[in-house]
């Protein structure tokens, strides 16, 4: 294992920023550290970099305990949220900084900086100062600067937070390809689940200082291990009484358990549009939102409020329309886990009622 954390905790006063976190990361993986703002993601990253000292627990890099190793000696590249470029230095000097400090030869510095300028597409900008660059360019300088001393591990704190939506998408793809080319183990912090799902090989989901789940985006999405993960990842609606949903009265749902439904679990439309009409319940369209690529329907089915997506190709629905609603599956939240329950009516497509 490349990076290992064992029982790491950090408290600020009475606030538990990181609470007994343990995980291990394989070499070469691109990890997305996802969670709500203030959940301890950045603190975790800063602990890894040596910029914060944990109160307890152990950090190992390549099997070696690094708790007492200064940030200067850890061989870690750090890309800060606001980039923290050196304002008074040109792009070239910013990228060269780590090598200058190591007293590398002029020729060596030049060849490495040239290589990185090429790699990050910043050639021609080497004489510019940070304030003369766009947000995306600054981000790339910060990236090149962190990579210059050939770190073993790259840490990125909300690398795309300050960049507008369109450039952010391009940069994400660019970064993913670049990291794959270099093959460096990387961890990036984000509060944007789309970003994490799109970029990361593996996700670490952190909430209130605790690690909720580690897994690939697909695992996290389809097999959430906790109620928090189920509700945080993906667009979801919480249902107070899942057993009251059509069909789920036959499923074994513990009393008092809550349910989570994602829009993609719900099929809504006129009776003839539904794949399994017998398993569908009646509902009413409350509101319709245009979401660019699809319509989002807000439905009421008995006392429950559900969200469903509808293709723009299908005939549009209006608020007040009566629709059939088929719920394919739900997550049932138990104490500290989420269990996926398929609609029992789907398994028995032709129930005979006598």
């Amino acid at each position, binding site marked *: 294992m490349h990076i290992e954390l064992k029982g790491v905790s950090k408290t600020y006063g009475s606030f538990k920023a990181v609470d007994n976190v343990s995980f291990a990361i394989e070499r070469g993986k691109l990890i997305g550290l996802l969670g709500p703002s203030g959940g301890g993601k950045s603190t975790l990253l800063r602990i890894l970099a040596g910029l914060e000292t944990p109160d307890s627990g152990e950090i190992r890099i390549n099997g070696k305990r690094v708790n007492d190793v200064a940030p200067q000696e850890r061989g870690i590249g750090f890309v800060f949220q606001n980039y*923290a470029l*050196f304002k008074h230095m040109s792009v070239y000097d910013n990228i060269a900084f780590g090598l200058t400090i190591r007293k590398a030869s002029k020729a060596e510095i030049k060849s490495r900086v040239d290589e990185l300028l090429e790699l990050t597409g910043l050639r021609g900008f080497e004489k510019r100062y940070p304030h003369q660059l*766009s947000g995306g360019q600054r981000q790339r300088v910060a990236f090149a600067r*962190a990579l210059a001393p050939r770190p073993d591990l790259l840490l990125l704190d909300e690398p795309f937070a*300050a960049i507008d939506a369109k450039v952010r998408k391009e940069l994400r793809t660019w970064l993913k390809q670049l990291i794959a080319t270099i093959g460096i183990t990387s961890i990036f912090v984000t509060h944007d689940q789309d970003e994490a799902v799109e970029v990361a090989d593996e996700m670490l989901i952190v909430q209130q200082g605790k690690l909720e789940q580690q897994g690939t985006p697909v695992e996290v999405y389809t097999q959430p291990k906790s109620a928090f993960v189920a509700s945080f990842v993906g667009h979801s609606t919480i249902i107070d009484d899942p057993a009251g949903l059509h069909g789920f009265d036959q499923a074994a749902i513990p009393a008092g358990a809550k349910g989570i439904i994602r829009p993609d679990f719900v099929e809504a439309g006129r009776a003839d549009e539904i794949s399994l009409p017998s398993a569908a319940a009646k509902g009413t369209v409350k509101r319709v939102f245009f979401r660019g690529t699809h319509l989002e329907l807000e439905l009421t089915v008995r006392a429950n409020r559900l969200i469903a997506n509808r293709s723009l190709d299908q005939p549009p629905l209006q608020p007040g329309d009566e629709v059939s609603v088929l719920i394919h599956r739900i997550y049932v939240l138990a104490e500290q886990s989420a269990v996926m329950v398929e609609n029992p009516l789907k398994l028995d497509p032709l129930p005979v009622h006598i």
Partner: protein
Amino acid sequence: MAGAVTSHLSHEAAKRPKHITESPIVKWVLISIALLFLALVVLLPLISVFIEAFKQGMSVYWASITDPDAVSALKLTLMTALIAVPLNTIFGIAAAWAITKFSFRGKNLLITLIDLPFSISPVISGLIFVLLFGAQGWFGPWLDDHNIQILFALPGIVLATTFVTFPFVARELIPLMQAQGVHEEEAAASLGAKGWQIFWRVTLPNIKWGLLYGIILCNARAMGEFGAVSVVSGHIRGETNTLPLHVEILYNEYQFSASFAVASLLVFLAVITLIVKSIVEWRTSIVQAGKEGEQADAH
């Protein structure tokens, strides 16, 4: 800001749309009042210094400022500034560094103490040293036994000046360093830079204009200080007289032309300081504009 107005004039602020600005009459009345007041309170006395200085002709002026006592006062003033200003520069950087980069017990006390010289009368500041080093003072007898002269000598003048001027550099740097935060230093550390390397390569370049501004203000006050120095100097002509003290002595002896001539020397020193200050401010405003542009881009 410590005893000085920092003008960061931006053109944006001057370009006010009609609905939030005043009528031309109000505008001109306000400008006239400001200028008239300035002329009366600042410009008129300043001109009168030169008129009085040259009243009895160039030769008297020249004689007054080349008088051995005047030259020695000028030397002493420059010498005092030369010692006090570097001391306060080092102290100011260290204090600002400690306050903005670390958290420790007694931090607020330190901030309050830095402001102390501004909040008490300079005469009291001088008196403190008399109480400490005077013949009846705490250390007086011991110093006397070892034949060390502090009061009525250069060390006393330097101490009093240092005490009075020590807030300038620290006061200038603390808000600046607080605004800059520690991000760049952290970046430098993660790239392998250690304490001194971080200071020389990252921190100092970022604060250099603010630092220079603080040094200029500190220097201006060090050369002009009267109250505290007056208490500890002993007014020994040709020995412990600084320029401000020399001006007072001449004035009290009814040598008005000589007094104003020496005063004009101080005015020249002040003008030089102001010119350097303006250049620094102009530079800072360019840097500031650059940074604002950077922030505007980032959002």
